[in-house]
């Protein structure tokens, strides 16, 4: 499936801002099942400095700074991406309670890379509450992926999607208590649960295609940034699970990148001088190439 992706983030300030320092993670990651055919980043006002580098986790990070006074900033990322089916696990997994020991012994580059996602990070720390929540899904003999899949289903059932219940800063303990949140909260919760029983899990940042109700046209800007989870099982590898939608990630998902949690891979984070308070508005369009209207197609190709 080929998508034309347009992600516009607009920042508005109540007072002029003189300096902005920003790090973006907005360039989709090149993966065996994801080909980035084109990518374009437009920032307004024009930054004084803009550089790209690979971060520790292999994602593209864009650093930029703006030095001229302004009261609004726009960051537009446009790309054309082909998403293929993810390859199935090469081997069956191992039982969840042997995973930690197996990972600890694996000092191959791949093994080390996976192991680091088993440790506490700012937004997803192992903790007794999370451990208690995941416990019913940890039965003897279950593989890592089986435990994680059951956990995903339970989170999906037990928790209510509620954009007003949380902010970026809401801790996992509070989400557990209130049983409400958004995709980001559910991903952090699921990661904290898995890490609490010694399993490595990472935070996936990207987009999911929303399908309009049958018979209705696609609404502009209706798609959204999305977050889900990838869980590692020695031998079987990574499995991507989406607790918000209770499904395995498929061709409907575009991956921007991953990290230990949101803090490593937030689409835009920055420090600004001045500005009073600010509001952020994000608009995402993820349009399958097959649905592009001819005019749009021309525009997108320009």
């Amino acid at each position, binding site marked *: 499936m080929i998508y034309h992706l347009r992600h516009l983030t607009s920042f508005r300030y109540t007072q002029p801002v003189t300096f902005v320092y920003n790090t973006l993670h907005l360039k989709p990651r090149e993966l065996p099942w994801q080909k980035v055919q084109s990518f374009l980043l437009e920032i307004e006002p024009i930054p004084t400095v803009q550089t790209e580098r690979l971060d520790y986790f292999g994602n593209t990070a864009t650093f930029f700074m703006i030095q001229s006074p302004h009261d609004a900033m726009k960051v537009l990322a446009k790309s054309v991406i082909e998403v293929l089916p993810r390859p199935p696990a090469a081997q069956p997994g191992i039982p969840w309670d042997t995973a930690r020991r197996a990972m600890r012994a694996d000092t191959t580059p791949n093994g080390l890379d996976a192991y680091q996602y088993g440790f506490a990070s700012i937004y997803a720390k192992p903790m007794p509450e999370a451990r208690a929540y995941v416990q019913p899904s940890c039965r003897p003999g279950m593989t890592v992926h089986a435990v994680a899949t059951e956990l995903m289903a339970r989170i999906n059932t037990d928790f209510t999607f509620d954009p007003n219940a949380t902010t970026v800063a809401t801790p996992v303990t509070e989400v557990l208590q209130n049983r409400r949140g958004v995709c980001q909260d559910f991903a952090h919760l699921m990661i904290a649960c898995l890490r609490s029983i010694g399993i490595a899990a990472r935070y996936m940042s990207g987009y999911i295609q929303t399908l309009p109700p049958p018979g209705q046209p696609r609404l502009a800007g209706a798609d959204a940034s999305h977050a889900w989870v990838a869980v590692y099982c020695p031998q079987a590898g990574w499995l991507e699970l989406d607790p918000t939608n209770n499904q395995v990630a498929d061709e409907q998902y575009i991956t921007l990148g991953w990290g230990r949690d949101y803090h490593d891979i937030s689409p835009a984070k*920055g420090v600004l001088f001045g500005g009073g308070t600010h509001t952020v*508005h994000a608009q995402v369009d993820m349009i399958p190439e097959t649905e592009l209207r001819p005019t749009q197609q021309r525009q997108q190709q320009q």
Partner: protein
Amino acid sequence: MNSLINAYQPIAGAYSEMLDPQRAIRPPWQTMLDQLAAYGPEDIEARWQRAQRMIRENGVTYNVYDDAQIGSHPWMLDPVPLMIAPDEWEELSAGLIQRMKVLNLALADLYSDQTLLKNNVLPSELLFANPQFLRPCCPIKPPGGSYLTLHAVDLARTPAGKWCVVKDLAQSPPGAGYALENRLVVSRTFPSMYRDCGIQRLAPFFIALRDTLEGLSQAANPHIVVLTPGPHSSSYFEHAYIARYLGYPLVVGNDLTVRGSQVFLKTLSGLKKVDVILRRQADLHCDPLELASDSIQGIPGLIQAAIDGEVAIANALGSGLAETPALLPFFPGLCRALTGEEPLLGTLPTLWCGQEKECKQVLDQIDRWVVKRAFAGPHEKPVFVRTLAPAERAALAEQIKADPDQYIAQENIELSSSPCWQHQQMVPRHTMLRAFTLATANGWMVMPGGLVRTAAQVDSAIVSMESGGGSKDAWVLARGIVEPVTLLSGEDDEEIHLSRSDANLSSRVADNLFWLGRYVQRADMHARILRTILRRLTEEHLPDGSPELAELLRVIAVITGADKKTPSITDPLKQPAETKAFIFSMLYGKTHLGNLYNALTSACNIGATVRERISIDTWRILDRMNNELLSARDEGDLPDALDMLDHLLMPLSAFSGLSSESMTHGYGWRFMDMGFRMERATMSAQVLRELLAQPAAFETPVLDAILEVANSSMTYRSRYQSHVALLPLLDLLICDDTNPRSLAYQLVMVSQHINALSQLTERGLLPEQTLASELVSHIEQCDLAQLVQTDEQGKRAELSRFLAEINEHVLELSNMVTHRYLAHVLVTSRLSSSIGSENWDGVEDEE
């Protein structure tokens, strides 16, 4: 036999640094002890008292972290140095150099290929569970591959006499500055002992440090700054001391800014590129964009600048990883893997509980160990398990079992003991040595000496400043003749003068100097008014009961804002209790925002933040003033208070004289003096207005009091030789620009400063220049005879308006100057996009 050691009993079971098991003096101690004995106990004591006063007056302090209330503690230094033989030192140095090399290579590997993990030299948890492993720092390639420029090691000597490593300090090793200060104090206090012992000098080490820092940049004449977290950090004194000793500006994060990918210092004359940062701030707090985003001390974009190689930072960002306590047991493995050598210097037996076998070993015999956090921050306290109650021990064991990765255990050894001077004799104390190693462009160099720390009590094994211990100098004997070397004019001379042009002065420092001037002058004015009041209350004065007393009390109430809170005292002589209570609240009250106590403590607090910018003598004066006020007991009597004010006014008067003598007349001094002058102008105008606007029936005593407050009685009498009259008094205090207390004089000075500062902007005539010179001529040309006329209500309305206007204009000038030169401080906030929910207000932070 040396008389000093007759009664000395080393601690049983510990290695004695000074005496061998047969009580014979170890050879390196002999000359020093002979010299010390030659001074004799009384002379040692007397010299030591003097030295301690010097330490206190120099403001050598150590801030204790746990206790914000106590604040800074005076530095504790013992006069008896720890003596070390050259052979022993060379052996130790080889081990220290090897250690620094290995840790530097380890950092380079862990921040790039991580072969140490792949080859099983280190368990990967040491990296992945480690908050000191800063992933954003991976792309930074420090110049010359030098992650560690300066490294420190805490060493202990085992009962068998072997030095071994207890701890590494890798990210901004503290203590080298204290070691230098200790050396200067001891060498000045016991000059002949210092000369005759033939010890190695410290200055070459600091010269090498300076050369090394300069070499970190490609620039021909690199601009180097010392970055400190600020006056509240535990070793702020040292940051300021090192900055002054090396001749670099001391800056806080807010003084620096990243533009493009370069780092700049915000100065009075604009932005100045910074090439090298000597970092005394934890790396986690250095860049809020990439690291701890809740940090307010950081410089956003600093990591990008470091990645781009536009700034060199010593030690490199991320080097805190090398001081991870859990790395200690793996050092021999690191050493073999990275250099192929065996470690030359042992490590105190240490176990990381993240390994099953080791964890069991710790839990089996838990009281044997000292337990520490595996990934500790710098201020984690070790737990001596044998001192715990059984229930606490069990609780600790449970904590370790629940999260074994997070703990290490170190063997609880008996630290060696060294002699400390107490009550005119030597007593033994457990001792540790902090040694410093420098990576220069041409190889490694160990500071010949170091910072020795001793326990507070004979039975205490806890050796730290936090727990009340002391410090010592370490003397390493030289082979052959010692050449004197110093960065300063002579090693025995610690005075350092600010000789550099200070157009590079940071705006923050200028702002602080401005306010220092204002507070000192405010304190001076308060003290003079209060003294004038107290003299009238305590000395036989006028038979009619000093009619001006009530007026003076009202003035002090008005200028401190106390008149709005408490009822005024109409007849002070008949209300002695109320009067005394009021005066004492003006002197000592800790909650009165405008009073003397407040002005003085504000002056001292600000002085502490700019102490590298003011001369040592000026600093001593501030310190002395603070002590005068603090040492005065507020339950004392009125004559005691008068006595205190007499004592206080001497250093207060000395302050302006000294600062104009011993500070170079650069922009920093101008800001300080401008603050001083503006405060004096507004306070004087206010006092004159309050006392003269409504003339008393019999005005002479009021005029006398005014002269006394203005310290101009002598001038007046020498000029007029008569009873005081209003017109000549006003001429002296308002218009006479030769009287350093007059309004005209203050404004002439302010005008000069404003003109000098205008050179910084290159924008032609500035509005504040015009205002200042207009104000000067307005005052000099005013018609006094006209001004003193009374109106139909018997008030001097003209004079009152005139003085009020002057006050307003001075405030306006102050705002103009502040706005032009000091308005660099900007408010930061955080920007973030969210996922899943569409909009949110950006007022919340991420964390």
